[in-house]
């Protein structure tokens, strides 16, 4: 039933989405472009991962979705970071930094 991606990757995508939403509310299409930009065109998120992730974040109460109007005057569903989501982002960022610095240190070890 659940898409069996590794916990790590799923968690990373969630974190990146929260990060992308930190500046301003965005719709799904905008998010996909924003994520690509953030990765300097290296990382193309699949829709099959993005939308389930958004649903998951919404279900956990970290983002809220509301209908709005896009720059091109199109009806779009905007995702907004909630206070809980902000806290979660902070916690995940700290954890990620600790993890990556540890792994980096281990990789550099001789």
């Amino acid at each position: 039933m659940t898409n069996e991606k590794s916990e790590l990757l799923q968690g990373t995508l969630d974190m990146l989405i929260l990060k992308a939403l930190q500046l301003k509310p965005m719709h799904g299409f905008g998010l996909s472009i924003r994520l690509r930009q953030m990765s300097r065109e290296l990382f193309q998120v699949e829709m099959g991962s993005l939308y389930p992730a958004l649903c998951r974040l919404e279900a956990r109460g970290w983002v809220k979705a509301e209908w709005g109007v896009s720059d091109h005057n199109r009806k779009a569903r905007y995702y907004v970071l909630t206070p809980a989501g902000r806290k979660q982002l902070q916690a995940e960022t700290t954890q990620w930094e600790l993890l990556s610095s540890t792994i980096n240190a281990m990789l550099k070890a001789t």
Partner: protein
Amino acid sequence: MRIWPKLKALLSREQLEADMTDELRAHLEMQEAANRAAGMSAEEARYAARRQFGGVDQIKEQARDQRGWVWLEQLWKDFLLAGRTLRKNRGFSAVAIVTLAIGIGATASLFSVINGLLRDPLPYPDAGRLTTVRRHDVNAAIDYMPLTTSDVLDLQERAKSFADIGAFSVRRFNLGGEHAEAVEGALCTAGLFRALGVPPLYGRWFTPDDEAGDQTAAVILSHELWKQHFNSDPSVIGRTVRLDGRNHTIVGVMPEGFTVLSLWMRTRSLGLWSLLSLRRGEGDWNGYWLGSIARLKPGVTSSQASEEVRTIARQLVETDPNRDSHKTFWSIPLAIDLGGLPALRISALLAAGWTLLVLAAQNVAGMMLARGIGRQPEMAVRLALGARRGHILRLVLMESLLLSLLASIGGFLLTLWGQSALTRLLPADVMPRAGLHIDTSLLGSIAVLTLISMQMAGFTPAMLASRTDVVSSIKEGGASSGPARKMQRKLRNLLVGQIAVALILVAVALQLSSTYRGMLGSSRALISDSILTAAVAVKGPAYQTDEARVAFWKRLLDNCATLPGVRETAMASKLPLDGGMSSTVLIDDQAFSPGISYPWIEQSFVSSGFFPAIGARLIQGCWFTPADENRRAQVVVINRTMAGRYWPGQDPIGRHIRPAQADQGWSREVVGVIEDVRQFAERPAQPEMYFPFTDFAVPESFLVVRMAAGLPAPVEAIRQELGRIDGDLALAGVRTLGALFQSQGRVLTVVTSVVDVLTVAIVALAALGLYGTLSFHFARRRRDIGVRLALGAAPRDIVRLVFKQAAVWVIVGLGLGAAFAWAVSSVLRRMLEDASPFNVPGVALGAGVIFIVALLAAWLPARRAMRVNPVEALRAE
């Protein structure tokens, strides 16, 4: 994990779905616009967008999985699907639900009575610590024997488990006044009030000083009597009141609602309590006569107390070899003592309810199994389309869950109705004093019953359905594939079992019904509204001797005999159906041995007019006469049962009866044998001896007056006659033998009518279940029949085919059932003293009904199958 968003997701599912569709579409459009902006053609842009996006439905599905409780949603879907399936098969669902609901309702309403009886709250402080001590006759398996005077004194002296122990004996008192009035009350020791612990409203309890003092006559009034006779006057304390012709000092008034509860007086309340001072060797003339209530010391458990009293009984036997060694003490909590026996009395009804539930569940199981076979192709298609086996299992179980859910709602409503019906039907003395309530334990039991019946009804079909073999089921249309054959076999076994069980139940119900009917009939012979009975307590200073009481009765009987319309007057120490006074005897030259437990023989002390007054038939010898009474002849009349038990095949006339005791005692010659007069409504006639009342004029006895048919009894005139002889005595409990029977035989009457209803219900349920299962089975064979018809079979052949199969199953079932029923009936006859024999015509009738129903159930769908065009029948699959 946050619950609210998930719950919201679950509740606003449709909104969310629409949102998602819109959202994804918007995304596609934006992508398309972006592609066009990048220079693609319109068509190219759209395709590229689609490609980049991926499968919309997969994404939706994955997104859904993230959103809520998937399993809950699945369950909800299964639930809806199950609901749709049940709605589609309305007939099946209705039959199944009604069947289960009846089973659940019958069981739960009877359970509520028994549960209520065992949990009836007692109106005493800290009532959980109250126990009662009784005698238990090891050999005779009599548990409810009262105590003797010395028993109570021994227990008071030796038992360390009890803070207080009191004894009492229920009595009728003549309360003096302008007109003497009979009041039901009790003699009780000072310890009784201390043990119960209810403080008096005014005055005080009895004290040990009262008990120790000579000739102290003290009385405590109930609130009710105080209100009625003393106008609720608080200054009654210290006043004297005339009781049985003697002055008593009122020492206390108890608060409203207080009474001393005892096993046979669960629902009646007493008017007064008169002080009883027990002295060793005094007042023990009627042996086992005292009830007891004790309060456990803090920290002592009921079983420790029971252990202690048993030890005391053993020690007493060691010190006194003349004591009955087989009669020990036992003690149980008062609440269980009061509720247990009435609960036992109606537990037969509960058992009947249970059988009904089992039968109902079995019926539904059969129907569901038949349906399971019918649904094999459907299940195969579901499996072929990718449903997991676990899912199929879940779906089928969900259907049975839904069925039992609806059934339990129905059962609950039936329980509510059943409770009010039982309250109306059952006599008060087998009902909980607190009435019937819907409480958590009742709801819990309904839930448990539902669960059990669901398991019984649903599980096998579910397992079978989930094991459907896809290929062969689809290919062969279900009827004859391998696993289907296995299911057919199961169905056949179930059908045969169903028929057998139905027949067994019918046989047992019929046997019980005719047994109870026999009991009713044999007591009804005596029941007459032209026989008036009334209690008179001949007590007081003027009636200390037998001679005085005999003289009183002779005067009363003579005076009443002259009243208009009176045919016969008599005195009796107890009435028919009102038994319970008994003793043990030796016959002829039999020698007494202390180790033997002699059977208890009912005994009555009656005047010579008693036999003609109640219309009892003389079988042999003669009755004793007024002349016998006058010369104190040493004679006794016995009943037919006693003659058969002690002198089987011999002439009992001229034989002798002696008391079962070490010393010689008295001896009486048997002069007559009369037909049995029942002592208890619910038991067959016990052996009984009738002694002339001149031997022992029991102080609390009954006046029996036989009226000329159709004439009203001159109750007022009798009352005046009594008043003329002694103004201190009062007439009590005036009623006809018919009314006495009405009250004593009520449980019996109810059980009989319930068993009748059950018999009908069992046959109806069996027929219904059989019809459901068989008709479904043969409806499934339409294709088979169609093929045969297409191949040129004549309708007659089809009929023969269908009947042959149905008949074989039914006959095997009936045969098995009859064999088991016969075995069960012989067990029953060993258990129930006068169970009637195996009811052959009744069982044959039941078997016939089952047989006809079975053939009908097979025939109707087969006929329908034959009416249709063979081609259509083949295509219908």
